[in-house]
């Protein structure tokens, strides 16, 4: 067992537990986007940052990837942590405003403004789809490509991958694209449904038969008729 302090509370957890698991177990909420139970932690969205260490050595680390260490002092909601999360949420809102998940998180953290140039991207490159494809579906059909602002994800050469079984797990785990039936403006509130159901990250050709997890979906049924 490892003994550590979370927000001043002395707790003990099993060795190999991450800070996120420990904090959540003891009832300290931590927001996440790229984390998903059953997938290996990745630490891309950085929303789950917590503060560790004291004085000038205090620093922020992602709780989803950081191991619990003996005697560690963790603060899950210090002002430094909250300010950082707010800024990340503002950045997320600026890039991906349609996502219900991101809207809800921003609202929960009282982020009321977005001061950057508005973009409308579908993907936040959290890597959940890639990890579910590799770790749970054993397919490795998609992966990251490029770096910096040119980074994106998809199948090799954007061709239909032979190892892709069209299982749709990548769509199912995506935290950013819950937009389909929940548009924000009234005139778009009609379910766009499966009209939009091409994974935002993949080319549409070759993926027509992608399985749909959005059931029941009227639009889909109508299209079939």
């Amino acid at each position: 067992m490892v003994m550590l302090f979370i927000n001043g509370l002395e707790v003990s957890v099993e060795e190999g537990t991450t800070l996120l698991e420990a904090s959540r177990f003891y009832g300290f909420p931590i927001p996440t986007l790229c984390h998903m139970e059953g997938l290996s932690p990745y630490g891309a969205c950085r929303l789950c940052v917590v503060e560790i260490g004291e004085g000038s050595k205090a620093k922020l680390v992602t709780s989803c990837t950081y191991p619990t260490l003996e005697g560690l002092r963790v603060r899950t909601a210090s002002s430094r942590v909250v300010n950082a999360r707010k800024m990340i949420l503002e950045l997320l809102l600026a890039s991906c405003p349609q996502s219900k998940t991101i809207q809800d998180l921003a609202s929960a953290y009282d982020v009321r403004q977005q001061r950057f140039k508005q973009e409308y991207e579908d993907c936040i490159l959290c890597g959940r789809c890639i990890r579910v494809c590799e770790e749970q579906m054993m397919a490795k059909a998609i992966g990251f490509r490029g770096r910096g602002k040119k980074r994106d994800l998809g199948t090799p050469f954007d061709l239909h991958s032979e190892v892709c079984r069209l299982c749709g797990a990548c769509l199912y785990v995506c935290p950013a694209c819950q937009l389909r039936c929940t548009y924000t403006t009234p005139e778009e509130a009609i379910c766009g449904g499966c009209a939009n159901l091409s994974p935002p990250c993949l080319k549409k050709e070759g993926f027509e038969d992608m399985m749909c997890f959005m059931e029941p979906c009227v639009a889909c049924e109508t299209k079939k008729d």
Partner: protein
Amino acid sequence: MERLKSIHEFERLQERLVIDRDPNVPTIVIPAGTCGQASGANDLIRVTKRELLNKKWVDKIHLRITGCNGFCQMEPSVLIEPQRTFYPKVSPKDMIRIVDALAKDQVLEGLLYVDPRTGSPIEKQEAIPFFKSQVRTILSRNEKIDPIRITHYIENGGYSAMAKMLALGKPEWVLEEVKTSGLRGRGGAGFPTGLKWEMLARQPNGHGKVLVCNGDEGDPGAYMDRSVLEGNPHSIIEGMIIGAYGTGASEGVFYVRNEYPLAIKHLLIALRQARELGLLGEHILGTSLSFEIRLVRGAGAFVCGEETALMRSIEGKMGEPGQRPPFPVQKGIDGRPTLINNIETWANIPIIIGSGAQDFAKIGTKQNAGTKIFSLVGKIKNTGLIEVPMGMTIKEIVDEIGGGPATDAKLKAVQTGGPSGGCIPTNLFDLGIDYESLTQAGSIMGSGGLIVMDEKTCMVDIAKYFMNFLQEESCGKCFPCRKGTQRMYEILDDITTGRGTLESLDLLEELATTVKDTTLCGLGQTAPNPVLSTLRYFRNEYLEHILHKRCPGGVCKELITYSINQNCTGCHVCLRNCTVEAITGTKKEIHRIDPAKCIKCGFCRSLCKFNAIDVI
């Protein structure tokens, strides 16, 4: 050459090589690193060889082709030994004269380096101000060695540190020496090397430990590691063998970027020669030490210089940093304990072991022992690679070695540490360069780039340039780094084009702090440094851009206009050369620039001999 089977055989070989060499034979030394070759050293080599062969002086005069000597601005240069005469910027025609003069034991006064301050020629290399204030423990070996000949390295004392260590037979002694020397990692962060080695030595030796030489030098304007690897690859190999003995590692990996073809070529030759001589491989010099080194070429991603990303790249995966802890020393390449040091750090090791840790610790300051190589570039007279003791002030470096500002414009700042570093203003030029003081000043040591900037540089534009570099070179894994650098660039771009507001300045600062706080690796954590340090020292320039829509440096095109003042003599030079025909006027009368047509390329200003073109 035959494989050496014992330490004794090695020592005999070394003795023989030293005896065979006659130090009094005149030798022409031509530095032909990448910088030398680019400025024409290959032509000089060709001419020299032809002359020596035609005139049958091959035995009388020797030729040695070496790596870079550091004074890159004066390339292609020639050094004559043993007289140590230095000829800068030699043309192939001059080369013929130099060879002839050397045969007669004469010095060509007209071709010597002229001190721009005194106007008098200087003959000896050591007397040139650029070299005088340096302490060249690593770089001075470059000019003695032809990098593709292992015998040159051995006859200059190479591999004797390794032989000394093997003869002593105590790995703990190696660790102790490196610790006593006070050497700190030259890659930028400055972690004590001895401590790192000891941590690796303590790791259980399950599937073998790995040593890595980080040769992924990616900072714009920095090339010291390339020069060391090109000019003296054996010193790094020797350093790694010593490291292997001290820490119990069995495998070494060179990670060198593929953009360094000459360095890779020299390294491969060096590895082959060391292997043939029995200095690498199984049972080195007949001892129990076995160590093998392989080369991995990097594809040129800046982030792969970060150690966790570098390890993933070596494993054949995408170069993306990972979580620490576990640290590489605990769990590195393929799960094996891994130690990563930079090229310069490894190059220091044979010096420490060879001449003693105490001697090494005497150079530099107490917390920062030894020398550091910097690439000194920008708006100063002498640019090139310099090696100075730690703790030397920026002022000394810029004024004495760099020779002061290149033009009439006053100096404004020096940028250290590449894209992750910051700008230090002139009023802090008394700062001694070491890891702590640079960090305190809001910059970092980094791998060692020093870019000197004068009044005609716009600090906002500099921050924008580095942010553009970083938004492309961030790996993109951490959202705040990928989007944060992009957003910072957007805000800086707004400011330089006159669209900035005071609110955007606050946002920029807020964002920079978040990026620094929340990102995973060194790249992200230091990415906001160019912004934060320029905001700290040059806030006025930002405000000038935002409030008065003016660029004090005269760089930001949207905010400046070109005009012609009373100094104009009407010589027509600008008029004839303007590519968009924006300049009008009759001969011998003051010309005019049509602001509607002017594309602000600055060509007229660079051509005008009368200082008649203003930028406001």
